[in-house]
């Protein structure tokens, strides 16, 4: 089809829309935003007659590359350190993708512009593509990588493990609550436009550096669909901005979405990229460097800031604070350290850091060794069973953290922890912005304005609560993270598969002290104890060091 006719074709399909005369389509999702009917054009003209063949062509390339990887014995060169983290990443990501598909109908009745609905329907099916193509990649890893454990139980793991839960809010944030908050601001404006850049641009490069060239193929093919989604978000945002009554809600939602994405995505992707790689060339960009370039310079300064003159209130303070967390407060390092502390509750193996890794971290993040080096040396020392417990139950100068009720990542930057009694329960938050999200944003009124359509934070948001008082062996068995001999754990704090004696089993865990829920304990304290606990907690850190008095 000639290019000229694309515009004509796109124009013609606009004739398909009609105003109902007899019955209004069902309206199932509410929003507190208001939209005026506007003829905002669908900025990216996509007609299915060219869309389907284009996607099929991409598929040919992806599946051809998969065949090639198998034929070329790619897995003889793949770094296990890297692929183990894919057990986490690929357990999470298909749900956010499919949830994005599910989110599209939230916009139909709320954004009165039929021309945009076409773009949303195409985004819907793009997301179905992404979800299943990623499941397929995981299946391929399971079939061809040395250790299928964790891949083979992927979706069960994802759904009952606390890391999965952290990732899952990313998905559920798209599909529930105020329709515009969820499907437009959180999903397309922030998650897709800002954060998928690091996801889908940085991850493939790192995968390739670690001998995995399948992930780059799949994720580049996924990313080439993002342009449509970015356009969808932009068009809706401009429509929302046109009504001044929305500006307050936009401000609220940008704050929430920005901060939550930072907490969740930077935790996960930052860890994969910094701690999941064997590539320690000094000129390799660190996650902080990439973040600065893509998220700060590009998304913040060239996408958001120009919208300021249209009345968009940009959370400048939180954007600076996110950078502060990544650069000065070691957010990614704190998260990686926590994942490694809790390795036994997970479903992948975490490789200890070596001198070469130490050198790189110190070069990229001056002061890293003083903060984290000692702890990682301990991790290495405790990685194979030798009469001791897993690191979480050993004295390595690390205080097991409290969970953030909102983002569900623990309160790792100790000094920022905030505590509040909310809905009859004492909760901890990793940062004031997360407290604000729970206490002020996700409520039926906001700054005196009724927001009856705003969503709620629900669920058993502290994972440890479920296992309060349990023996660790029972915890791991309950979650199902056990290999087919019935006792060897899926997770291991090292990569050595040669010697069965080096693999941790449930038996090693039986001897450990029982698991305690920090939140249950917090709620059992007297007010005085709690105040003291808080005062001490925020004097702890970095690297989880407990406060030991003056």
């Amino acid at each position, binding site marked *: 089809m000639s290019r000229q006719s694309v515009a004509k074709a796109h124009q013609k399909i606009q004739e398909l829309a009609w105003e109902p005369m007899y019955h209004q389509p069902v309206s199932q999702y509410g929003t507190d935003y208001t939209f005026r009917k506007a003829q905002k054009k669908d900025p990216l003209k996509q007609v299915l007659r060219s869309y389907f063949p284009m996607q099929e062509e991409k598929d040919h390339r992806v599946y051809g590359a998969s065949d090639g990887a198998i034929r070329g014995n790619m897995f003889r060169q793949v770094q296990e350190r890297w692929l183990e983290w894919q057990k986490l990443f690929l357990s999470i990501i298909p749900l956010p993708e499919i949830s994005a598909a599910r989110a599209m109908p939230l916009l139909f009745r709320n954004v009165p512009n039929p021309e945009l609905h076409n773009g949303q329907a195409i985004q819907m099916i793009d997301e179905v593509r992404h979800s299943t193509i990623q499941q397929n990649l995981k299946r391929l890893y399971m079939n061809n990588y040395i250790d299928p454990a964790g891949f083979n139980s992927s979706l069960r793991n994802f759904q009952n493990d606390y890391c999965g839960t952290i990732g899952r809010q990313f998905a559920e944030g798209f599909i529930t609550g105020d329709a515009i908050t969820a499907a437009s601001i959180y999903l397309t404006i922030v998650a897709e436009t800002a954060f998928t850049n690091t996801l889908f641009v940085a991850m493939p490069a790192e995968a390739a550096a670690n001998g995995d060239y399948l992930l780059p193929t799949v994720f580049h*093919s996924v990313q080439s669909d993002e342009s449509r989604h970015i356009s969808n978000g*932009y068009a809706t945002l*401009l429509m929302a901005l046109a009504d001044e009554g929305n500006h307050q809600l936009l401000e609220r939602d940008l704050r929430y979405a920005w901060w939550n994405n930072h907490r969740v995505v930077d935790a996960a992707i930052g860890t994969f990229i910094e701690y999941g790689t064997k590539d320690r060339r000094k000129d390799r960009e660190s996650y902080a460097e990439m973040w600065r370039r893509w998220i700060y310079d590009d998304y913040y300064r060239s996408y958001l800031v120009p919208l300021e003159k249209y009345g968009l209130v940009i959370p400048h303070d939180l954007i600076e604070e996110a950078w502060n967390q990544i650069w000065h407060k070691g957010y990614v390092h704190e998260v990686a350290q926590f994942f490694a502390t809790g390795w036994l509750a997970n479903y992948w193996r975490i490789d200890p850091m070596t001198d070469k890794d130490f050198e790189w971290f110190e070069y990229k993040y001056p002061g890293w060794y003083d903060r984290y080096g000692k702890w990682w040396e301990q991790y290495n020392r405790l990685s194979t069973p030798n009469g001791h417990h897993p690191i979480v139950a050993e004295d390595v100068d690390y205080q097991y953290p409290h969970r953030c009720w909102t983002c569900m990542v623990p309160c790792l930057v100790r000094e920022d922890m905030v505590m509040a009694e909310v809905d009859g329960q004492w909760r901890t938050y990793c940062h004031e912005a997360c407290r604000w999200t729970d206490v002020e944003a996700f409520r039926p009124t906001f700054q005196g304005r009724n927001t009856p359509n705003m969503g709620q934070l629900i669920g058993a948001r502290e994972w440890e609560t479920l296992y309060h008082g349990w023996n660790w062996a029972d915890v791991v068995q309950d979650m199902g993270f056990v290999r087919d001999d019935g006792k060897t754990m899926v997770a291991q704090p090292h990569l050595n598969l040669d010697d069965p004696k080096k693999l941790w089993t449930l038996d090693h865990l039986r001897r450990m002290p029982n698991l305690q829920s920090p939140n249950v304990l917090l709620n059992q304290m007297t007010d005085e104890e709690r105040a003291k606990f808080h005062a001490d907690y925020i004097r702890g850190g970095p690297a989880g060091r407990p406060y030991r008095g003056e």
Partner: protein
Amino acid sequence: MGDKHRVRFEPVGIEIEVDEEQTVLRSASEQGLMLMHGCKEGQCAACKSFVLDGDDIELDRYSTFALPDYEKEEGFTLLCRAHVYEDVTIELLNFDEEMIRSGLPIQEAVAEVVSIDHVTHDLRHLVLRLIEPAEIMFFPGQYMDIKVPGTDETRSFSMANTSSKEDGRLEFVIKVYPDGLFSSFLDTTLGVGDRLDLTGPFGVFTLRDAPDKDLIFVGGGAGLAPILSLLRSMAERGIERKAVFYYGARTAKDLCFVAEIEALREKLPDFQFVPALSEPAEGGDWAGEVGFITDVLKRYEVDLKGAHAYLCGPPPMVEAAMPLLAQLGTPEKHIYYDKFTTTGGED
């Protein structure tokens, strides 16, 4: 720095200069153009565009999922990866017309007077040359605020030319009023070589992209300037939409630029020029239309449902034209005018 080349963006008609060493996207963003983009790494395809003219373009490394070979051969390109080595014209596929224009930086500038010509008894053709900066990007149809020296007052005037690329040139058509602040200054004080302070560009009186819509221009007096700019720009860009310019004046001596407008028909095959006089001189040799320009328009047009209309001129003319156009079917949102130009002359 490498050599620079012109990049013209269609259908918005914006032109920028791009250094060979910079990508088109980067260069556009430095010059205040809001182009749609995503990853800037050649992977997401949000900036995919079509090369209408020119082919000496090199791309930095990109994903073939974002730009497969067959699309590249057809002429598609990724602006975030593209370096140009000759002048090119690029069609944007993914843009928001309002937003892209909003990106033009509003600048303070100093310019000096090149010439002041009397084109009618009360219209002056003022030509300026920018000193600092040497160039200001604006869209045909936009205006600048010019400061009246020695006061804090500014007056708004539309450019009659299409770009300041050549020599920093800005052209205006200004009506002088007997006691107007700027008028008296223009006629009595201002001379070639004098400097003026300007701010801009402003305004939304710009040509909207709608290839299948006919165009109606209605103008008179100093309102000629932005319409002239739009017409000149159409001629430069080869926009062959069906267009009629209804140019109203009181007498033959109130008309100007008529020869140039007539000549535009050579470049714009579907362009019709209808000048009309409301008070032709008795016994004069005026062979054209007679009457208020709105009455003339009413005689000529029956159905303007599919048209876009651009109005600029004295307030009574604009006020009369709006309901008439609406009555003839022009959708209200497609009647374009700049508010300042309808506030009339000077206080």
